[in-house]
């Protein structure tokens, strides 16, 4: 099929989702009611907006992830050639992991991995 299959599948997803929504829109009887538009908070009117400064704890993990994910991408081409390159590749990867692990330990020491 080749790369065009990506477009085909993305289109199929859109067609499927949009189709389902359109079909449901045809069947559904819509009613309006001011309380329907309120956010669900266990039946109590919500206090303040959730769209404000949020605890940083969650984002720290995303930042550390970024480092590791980039590193993981470097590893893919390496992984393909391990068998051909042989021992050199093992030494290389040990050095690579060592450097990475230092960074990891630094983050750990800084308390970035401790959930607050």
């Amino acid at each position, binding site marked *: 099929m080749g790369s065009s299959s990506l477009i085909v599948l993305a289109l199929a997803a859109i067609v499927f989702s949009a189709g389902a929504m359109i079909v449901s829109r045809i069947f559904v009887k819509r009613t309006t009611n001011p309380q329907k538009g309120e956010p669900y908070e266990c039946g109590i009117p919500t206090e303040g907006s959730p769209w404000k400064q949020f605890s940083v704890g969650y984002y720290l993990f995303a930042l550390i992830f970024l480092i590791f994910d980039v590193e993981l991408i470097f590893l893919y081409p390496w992984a393909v050639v391990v068998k051909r390159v042989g021992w050199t590749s093992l030494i290389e990867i040990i050095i690579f992991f060592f450097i990475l692990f230092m960074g990891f330990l630094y983050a750990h020491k800084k308390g970035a991995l401790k959930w*607050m």
Partner: protein
Amino acid sequence: MIEELMTTEQGDLVINVGPQHPSTHGVLHLVITLNGETIKKVEPHLGYIHRSIEKMCESLSFRQFIYVTSRMDYLSSHINNHGCALCVEKGLQIEVPPRGQVIRVLMDELTRIASHVLWWGALAMDVGAITPFFYAFREREAINDIMEETCGARLTMNYMVPGGVMFDLHPNFQKKVHEFIQLFKSKVDEYDELLTNNVIFKARTRGIGMLSYEDAISYGCSGPTARASGVHCDIRKLYPYEVYSGLQFEEIIESGCDSYARYVVRMKEMRQSLSIVEQLIDNIPEGDFQAKTKAVLKLPKGEFYSRVETARGEFGVYIVSEGGMTPYRIKFRSPGFSNLSALDHMARGQKIGDLVAIMGSLDLVIPDIDR
């Protein structure tokens, strides 16, 4: 730097948990202040099912008001009734015949098992394991069937009357209870396998919701909640009523002070209750199940206080009588109300997921709190 960022106040969220929330087991409404996932404050708002039972009882006779109390702590309705019946008996100085006493205690302990079993399932569901809930209900059904045969009802039994119990036992009672004892003995072990020794469950409950010995006393906690903090508070042992003084059972006391300790206390209590049932089931004395009482009860002028150990803790009934046909004032001291007051203290600094586990380990029944 990171710690500074994490403790800033600007990111605080105020969230309503309840009254319509899957894990408040009813209509408890908690307003919690969160920083990220960490709880800064928990404020209970009560009253969603407050029916003012205390006021209602003021216009009901001394026979009638007992039945209203079944609707308070509906999971140990029989024990609630027991407390009220004891209080009226104390006022009238009625001696319950031995058979009546044994039947009452038998039913109490079966109710306690049923309540703890349900609590076990509900706690498991609160920490995210859904399957135990179904297993719990399977065993609870067996108890409910036994109750149904004798009392005619499954949840609000209304089996107590001042002076004894309402009817005699059903002929099948002993046989069925024997069957249940055999069944339950193997099932309790199954519960342990399913949850008690689960690594995730232990991680979720150990060291969570600490309630120290002093705090447990100061917050007026009772029942398994207090006993998990090492407080000696089982009414059945301290101030024995009915035939409890002649029975062999242990008061379970743990020193863990955390959710896991509360869990362990209840698990062990189930076994103790089962042993009480075992001791009594073959030794039900013959004779009357109910003392002779007048048709219309009139308590003498004065104040009477009785207390019993429900599945959740100490249940107190305080009757102020003016000598009439109805109580002048009734106060029910419900265990859940005091236990709930400790929730804020226990939950501070924990995660939102822990709050749910702590509430589960407190075994809150909302009508018991709201009354």
